[in-house]
């Protein structure tokens, strides 16, 4: 994986996530965590190598086949990527609308989910009026609303206090318990350690499997 003519950011990655597993992805800033996640959530194509998702090679898949797969993947983007002109409610409802569902079929689910991430009183608020932590929770709600088979989060606890981090972690664990394969990029060592989940560590464009305790502190 490389950007333009720059040197490869990721090389010789050999990663396979078992269905229903839960992993953290760690690594120094710039190590390529986001790049690896983008390959998995089908935002980027690898410059070489193979990616298998849902038992098919997606590295050379034609464009028209991507939307169907993307709907089975929930993503919490590092920069949230909320739509600022839409209310919190509309942002969460977005993937359901795209999937072609009718408002009456998901209105209540969306409301409950917003309640669950602590935005019950800010349902019709616009993202620019939300705090960093609230945006983060909103982005998470949007990622999980479709009950994705794969749930990917890029630094999902970067903007929240430790208490909220734990609450959000529980949300991810709950999604995992419901069957989602979860991969979370994070440099929050405390959270990673608290979770007790297996860790994938990125250095020099290579991946190392590790237990939380063995990962050296960064930055």
């Amino acid at each position, binding site marked *: 994986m490389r950007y333009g003519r720059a040197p490869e950011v990721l090389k010789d990655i050999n990663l396979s996530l078992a269905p229903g597993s839960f992993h953290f992805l760690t690594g120094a800033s710039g190590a390529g965590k986001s790049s690896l996640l983008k390959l998995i*959530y*089908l*935002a980027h*194509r690898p410059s070489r190598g193979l990616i298998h998702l849902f038992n098919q090679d997606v590295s050379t898949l034609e*464009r*028209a086949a*991507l*939307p*169907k797969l*993307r*709907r089975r993947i929930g*993503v919490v983007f590092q920069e949230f*990527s909320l*739509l600022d*002109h*839409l*209310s919190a*409610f*509309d942002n969460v*409802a*977005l*993937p359901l*609308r*795209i*999937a072609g569902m009718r*408002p009456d079929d998901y*209105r*209540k689910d*969306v*409301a*409950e989910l*917003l*309640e669950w991430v602590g935005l*019950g*009183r800010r*349902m*019709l608020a616009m993202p620019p009026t939300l705090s960093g932590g609230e945006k983060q929770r909103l982005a998470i709600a*949007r990622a999980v609303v479709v009950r994705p088979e794969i749930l990917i989060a890029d630094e999902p606890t970067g903007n929240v206090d430790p208490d909220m981090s734990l609450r959000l972690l529980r949300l991810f664990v709950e999604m995992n318990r419901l069957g989602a394969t979860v991969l979370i990029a994070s440099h929050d060592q405390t959270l990673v350690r608290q979770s007790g989940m297996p860790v994938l560590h990125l250095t020099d464009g290579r991946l190392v499997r590790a237990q939380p305790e063995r990962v050296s502190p960064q930055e």
Partner: protein
Amino acid sequence: MAANEARTRGDPQDDAWMDWRPAPLLPTQDGRDRALTFVVAALCFLACMSVFAMLASGRAASGWRRELGASATVQVRPKAGETGSEAAARAAEALAGVPGVQEAQALDRAAAEKLLEPWLGKGNIPDDLPIPHLVTVELDPAHPANAAALTAALDAEGLDATVDDHSRWMKDVEASGAAVRGIGSIGALLVAAAAGAVIAFATRAGLAARRDVVEVLHLSGARDRFIAGLFQRRFAFLAARAGGYGALAAVVLAALARSLGGSNGFTPALPLAWTDLVAAVPCPLAAALVAAVAARRTAMSILGQTT
């Protein structure tokens, strides 16, 4: 009610969600949309005006055609031993018997002089000026006699005469009518093409300005046609409204001209009928259609180029 029930069950405390309706996924861009509305409205105005002009000129042409086709003029050259008036009278009589002729009348010298007055001036016509001896023939508009039949009747009476059934003028009227229709159609096509181009341009700009929105939609599993559909609907509605404004302005202006022009329309050359104004009704629909096609095609082609 349902809201209270939801509250007691410990569901979301805020009832806002119960009335929630999906918001438009594309943000409106007031300044840009206003400019676009103005351009499309102006184009629709022009299109309506040219359609009105086409209808009016078509009506004028058919009026002239009817008048020209319903009459013929015969010029009689007296033979030796016969005055011009006698020859003309004989011709009129012969022509009156031809089927398809309603009336044939010899123009006497006074009437012929009257025709020349505009060119020569009243009282300036010398008595000995040779004036052509004319017979005006009114034809049955439903089954007009043709020039050949008239000539045959005159020949049978041994008259030396030339028949002018106005077919030369008819051809000119028809040709100019066809020209007006042709120019009008080309104008309408150009206006439609211009509207399509403006919408395509706006779609291109909208896709570029909303790259972030488009990316989120894509990564959330939206197909190109879902995204193209957003632009298609947005611009179709905008064009329909703008088309309405343009058509309304054209109708108001034409109605004003029509009522100022008295019972015969705003000029004798372009007699517009009140019913012609109905032609503006499909304009908003046509604008919406053009905009929808242009927006969809543009969006699909741009989105298809990305990987």
